């Protein structure tokens, strides 16, 4: 579905953001794109959407070269940027003018999503708060039924109940034909939502694994005494004890701690990736 091959890009000369970056994303998954500030998460999403052009390499979505922004490509991809624009019209007008451009748009689903997010239908977009507007845009994005859906920091500006509503609607919207990519630095917001993790750092994709594979190979646990634990790959101390990652040698089941995994991958990339090779 999304194929990035040998992508190189820099905003300034001699300061590359991506160097020969490769990434393949398939339909039927919700990918979480994680990275430090300035690692290039948003820039990578912009390349996928065709808002930035590679200096070298290719970025294709459904076989379309993103940079050409052809209508057949644009009607199959929807991006919810971190900072977004909505015209000063009513929800009804917005739908009537924007929806015809998305052949698979489902009006009924759109109003269902709005209901789920508790957005009053008769309220004008201009009278809405940032969080409400974002929920309208997310609802529209989901109802457009595009094959690729890109969400850049979607939970920014959402209150706590809305974040859980967000997880609920995204989980319900995923299908075998859709590829959803979510970029965030608030990894806890994506708990139980994403099924694949992509970590970007140092101009490259340094980690890309299914959540299932991660929990098969790694064990996430909290211990009181770190010295009692063997083969600690990474640990993080808190008032509750020590959150640790160890190799899952006993095929035990544990719940993934994405923040811990993210920090582990950034801190000890070789040790972590070695386990997956």
């Amino acid at each position, binding site marked *: 579905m999304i194929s990035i091959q040998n992508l190189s890009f820099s905003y300034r000369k001699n300061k590359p953001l991506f160097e020969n970056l490769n990434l393949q994303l398939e339909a039927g998954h919700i990918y979480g794109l994680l990275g430090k500030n300035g690692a290039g998460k948003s820039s990578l999403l912009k390349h996928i959407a065709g808002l930035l052009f590679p200096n070298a390499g290719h970025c294709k979505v459904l076989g379309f070269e993103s940079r050409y922004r052809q*209508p057949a490509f644009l009607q199959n991809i929807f*991006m919810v940027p971190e900072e977004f624009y909505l015209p*000063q*019209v009513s929800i009804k007008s917005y739908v009537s003018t924007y929806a015809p451009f998305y052949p698979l748009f489902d009006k009924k689903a759109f109003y269902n999503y709005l209901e789920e997010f508790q957005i009053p239908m008769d309220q004008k977009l201009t009278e809405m708060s940032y969080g409400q507007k974002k929920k309208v845009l997310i609802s529209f994005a989901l109802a457009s039924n595009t094959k690729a859906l890109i969400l850049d920091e979607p939970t920014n500006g959402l209150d706590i109940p809305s974040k859980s509503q967000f997880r609920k609607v995204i989980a319900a919207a995923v299908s075998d034909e859709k590829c959803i990519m979510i970029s965030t630095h608030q990894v806890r917001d994506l708990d139980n939502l994403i099924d694949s993790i992509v970590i970007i750092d140092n101009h490259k994709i340094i980690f890309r694994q299914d959540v299932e594979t991660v929990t098969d190979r790694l064990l996430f646990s909290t211990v009181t005494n770190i010295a009692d634990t063997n083969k600690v790959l990474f640990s993080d101390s808190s008032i509750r004890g020590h959150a640790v990652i160890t190799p899952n040698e006993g095929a035990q089941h544990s719940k993934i701690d994405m923040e811990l995994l993210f920090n582990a991958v950034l801190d000890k990339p070789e040790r972590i990736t070695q386990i997956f090779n």
Partner: protein
Amino acid sequence: MQANNLFSPVRFGWYMRKHLQDNYRLYGMSVIVLTVLSLALLLLSTTDNFSIKASGLMPVFFIGMYATGLIFTSLCFAELGNKQQGIDYLLFPASHLEKFISTLLVTTVGFLLLYHVAFYLAYQMMDFIIYTKKSVHIVNDLKEFAVDTPWQYFYSIWFVAQAFMLLGAVYFQKYSFIKTIFLLAVFLFCLYLVNTLFVLLFFGKILDEWYSHFPFIVVQIQKGVTAEGEVHDLLIIPETLQQIFRFAAQYLLPPILWTLAYVRLRDKEI
């Protein structure tokens, strides 16, 4: 069904509808502002001592058309200077050609239509004011004006200026109007300097003054000296060539500039 990726009339219709729906308030208010502004300028430009003729109002009409039309065109891609709006614009599922043509139509046909409506309203209001004060109407001598004045050229030149401004608007999202005028002035000055070099090369000593030429059209040379003084001659390019130049400036230059603007729009990144 595979979408037409270059131009689809149906999608273009939808896009125009979307554009108008997003901007109808702005355009409606613009007509009101233009009408009031035109009326104010018309009232300021006339005095009580003369009978008012419609032809006397035409300078205000054309100056207003150039000023407002070019400023409006210079702002037509301002949304690309705003990250949020720019993303919405570039990712909207219409082709670049459809987006560009809609902007072109709005800044040419749309603007001229609204401007003429606004000026006509201002004209009618002014006529009403004058009639109330003096019990006379504005003298409509536009037929004579149309015969005596090459008014068509004012429109032709406006389209050339509009095309330059549109190209500038795609390149510069901030201060587009000023930047475009500045760069155009620099370009014309450089063109003049290049022409000066060639004129000096070709005519050398017989050239009247180093600056006595108009690029590609005319050169003033010295023919000799008589008892009465120096004899000058104007070397003008043949009439056919003049017509070709005029045709190119009127009918080829704007489409070329529009095409360049379209190509630049396709390459826009945010």
